[in-house]
Structures are given as C-alpha cells and as structure tokens.
C-alpha cells in the first residue's frame, strides 16, 4: 500500500484527510482509486495534477509504476517558462 | 502617393529603389531589398537591433527615411563578412558564445564595428557605453563585451585569430 499525500488545499476537498493508503500499480490506477475515496477531488484530478513518486515529478506519464513503499504526493499542475 | 526614387550605395554596391516618402530605411532594406539581417525590435531607436552604418556613423535604420539614403553610403550586417571570411568580431562572437537567440547580434556587431573603426583599443567602460543602445535580453552582456575586447585585440595584432 503506497502512502499518497495530498498537497495542501487538496485535502480540503477530501474532508480534511491529508493522507491515503492506496494499493495501485501505477499513477492512473492510483488517481482512479483516490477519486473514488474522495469524490470531491475528481474534477481537480481530471483537470490535471502533477504526481511525485519518490521525489520525481510526473506531469504526464500516467502509467509510471508505484512501488508498495513509494512516497507519493499529489501536487498542482505545473508549467515552466 | 508618388514614390521616391533613390540611388545609394549599400555594402559597396550601387543600389536603386523606389520607396514611399514615409517609409523607413529599415523597411526598405527588409521589405524591398530582402536584406532582413537588420532587425526591428522597437521601431523607436531604443533597442539598436536595426543598427546600420550611414556615411560612417552607426544609426538606427528605423529612424532614417528610405528617401534620406539618396547618394549616401549604407553598411549593413550583410556586408560585414568578406565572402566566406568572417569579420574578426563575427568570429569572436561565435567562439565566445556571445549570442544566444541572435536577434540583437547583427545590430551589436555593426555598432561594435563602428566603435573599433574609431577606437582600436576601447576600455570595458567605453564598450559598455557605446553599446548601451543595443539591448540584449539573453546574455547579460558579459560575453558580448568580452568578444568585442578579444576581437579588438586581434585586430590590433596582439593576439592570433580566434
């Protein structure tokens, strides 16, 4: 079970819950499971988020593998200049 | 609007063109003569990207009418290299990474050439003030100033070709 942590104000959309234990093999499954656990998050997740797995930021790749002991953060959509 | 007929020398070649009375020399060079090396960054003489040498003086070609060039001598970036052989300034800019995007480069090279024609050994401060009217947003000017210094040294015969 990976520990999925919600960045700041996202947790407000999850009734204050900041951390979820989710068993998912990759980002796509993890986001689906997260949306089911906290339905109010669904529109935000659909708009696009950045996912950090063990410190590496993933803006696009939805099928990046998540290990059972991975540290996962859900961060806002990011762009550079 | 009747057009003005102009005969002038551009990079040593006699050139004739017709232009509107209110058309700038920069527009003539770019739009009528397809010499697009001179760039328009502002159109108000504040950026220097359109610098040419007119009768020996560097000027912003966006602030010169095409009609004014009658009988004068115009030097542009297109005339700076001698065939395949680059001007020392061009070579030192290339070797010294003194350009990034390259849009300001033609204007700076022409302005620097005019500087070295009247001052073979300018100080860093003299180079910086001479080029104050040539904006560069990529480099922070450091490598540009160094490239002018090293080209000047080569032109004075103090160093070998870069």
């Amino acid at each position: 079970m990976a520990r999925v942590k919600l960045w700041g104000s996202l947790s407000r959309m999850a009734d204050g819950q900041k951390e979820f234990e989710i068993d998912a093999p990759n980002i796509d499954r993890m986001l689906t499971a997260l949306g089911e656990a906290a339905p109010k998050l669904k529109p935000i997740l659909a708009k696009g988020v950045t996912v950090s797995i063990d410190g590496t930021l993933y803006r696009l790749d939805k099928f990046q593998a998540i290990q059972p002991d991975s540290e996962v953060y859900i961060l806002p959509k990011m762009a550079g200049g | 609007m009747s057009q003005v007929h102009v005969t002038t020398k551009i990079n040593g070649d006699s050139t004739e063109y017709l232009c509107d009375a209110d058309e700038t020399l920069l527009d003539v060079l770019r739009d009528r003569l397809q010499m697009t090396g001179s760039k328009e960054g502002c159109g108000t003489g504040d950026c220097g990207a359109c610098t040419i040498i007119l009768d020996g003086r560097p000027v912003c070609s966006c602030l010169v009418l095409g009609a004014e060039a009658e009988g004068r001598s115009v030097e542009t970036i297109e005339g700076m290299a001698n065939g395949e052989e680059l001007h020392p300034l061009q070579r030192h800019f290339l070797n010294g990474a003194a350009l990034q995007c390259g849009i300001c480069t033609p204007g700076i090279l022409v302005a620097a050439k005019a500087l070295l024609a009247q001052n073979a050994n300018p100080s860093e401060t003299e180079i910086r003030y001479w080029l104050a009217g040539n904006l560069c947003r990529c480099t922070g000017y450091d490598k540009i100033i160094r490239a002018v210094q090293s080209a000047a040294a080569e032109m004075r015969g103090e160093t070998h070709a870069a």
Partner: protein
Amino acid sequence: MRYESPTTVEAAVTLLANEAGKAHILAGGTDLLVRLRSGFIEPDLIVDLKRIDALKSITMESDGLRVGAAVPSAMLNEHADAVAGWPGVCEAAILIGSTQVQGRATISGNLCNASPAADSVPAMVAARAIARISGPQGMRDVPVEEIATGPGKTSLAKGEFVDSILLPKRAPGTSDAYLRFIPRTEMDIAVVGVGICVTVDKTGTCTAARVALGAVAAKILVVEAAAQALIGTKGDEAALNALAAACSAAATPIDDKRGTVAFRKEIAGTLAKRAAKIALSRAEKNL
C-alpha cells in the same frame, strides 16, 4: 506625404511657406520618425535639412560658435573648440539617446521638439544660446528659452524653422556643466536636468551665474534665485545649499512614470549642487 531635401535655406523656406497642409522639419529625425510611425503626426510634407551645406557645419564667428541645425550631437562633440568652450552644452548633447541616436540627433531638433525634459536645452539656456530662425519674413535671432512655449509647442510661425544655434562667446573665467538624473546609466529621458553656467574672477569668486532646470515644469525653468545664491561666493557649502534650496523651491514638477513630485524637487537641488561644483572648477581653469 511628400519628402523634399532642398539644398539652400531659401528653398526650404519657400517649400514650407507654400505648403498648404502640415509640414514638418526633418533634422536628425530621431523624434520626428518616432512620432510619424506611431501615427501621432500625419504630415503632408517633410523637409529634410541635411542637404543644406550651411546647416551641416560648425563655424566660429566673431560673437560665438554657430552650430548648424543639421549638425548631429556626435559631430558637435568631435569639434575641439565646441568641447573646450562649451563643455556643458556638449555633454548635454551627447546624453541624448544612444550612440546611434547621437549620430543623428541635433540640438536644434532637441530645442524644437519643445520637450520639458530635453537634455541639451537647459544647458543651452544656461549658456544664453541664441536660435537663428529663418522664415518667409527673413531671419531673426531669439534666445533659445523663447522657442518652447509648452510641451510640444513652439513660438515658431508657419514657414519658420531654426537654422542654427549660436553659442555666444564667453568671458574669461566662464564655463558650464550639465547633469541629469536617470534611473539607468543611459537611454532614459531625464527625470531632472540641470544646466549651469558660471563666471569666476581671479579670486575664484563667482561673478555671474545662470541656472536652468529641465523636466521639473512645463518649460525649461531659469532659476534666478539659484544664480544669486552662487554670485559673490566661492561655491562654499552654504552657497551650494542655498542654490539647491532655490532649485528645489522653484521646481513645479508632476508625478509621472519617471518620477514623483517630491523626488524631482529634491533631485533638482542635489544635481544643481553637483553641476555647480563642476562648472565652477571648469571656470577657474578658463581664467
């Protein structure tokens, strides 16, 4: 729009006088072309002065140095007599824009734009420069401070133009200086400009002074009280402070994108002090 480049002053006057529409003079063009391209002006005729040989020269006359209306700032600053005799005017002229602009811009053009922030004008006013005007009624000479009547407005009548500027000959012990404040080192319009011309006697005492401020009012300001603060002194700290106070008090600037009222008033005094010191030390060398 028509472009004409007459070769004599008379031909230029005729062209201007006969034009029914809007006519503009092209000297250096560094301001005219900006206004033309922005659509701010829509002339019917442009008269280029740069084919008139007489206006392209700097000549020493019996009563001073005559600078033709087509002489660019760079050329003025290459003229050894001009730089030696009128350093304040020359240093003001060479502050106008970039190297590229200095190869074109003229002090006559700077004067006739009638910008309150023109760099060369306070210096010329301090130097008591005289503008020679050619027009349908012939020639007339007027002090440069009478040319601008307000921002962008001049006293020139239809068909008239400034053909040259005389920098009057100077008494021994006279010199000048110009300083301006800008946020950068180059390329800005003056937030405040100060031109000062002084005469000193053999003891180093100031016997005559003229102080002109730019960018602090609708027109260039001549500050008589500031001049009086210097006259009779050797430019000691008290005199300089009085000069600065007079300049700050005389300034009636506006708040705009380039500076605030409080800032401009204060800087007018600060720069006046600094410019006076330079002018006094130059004047002593001219004794």
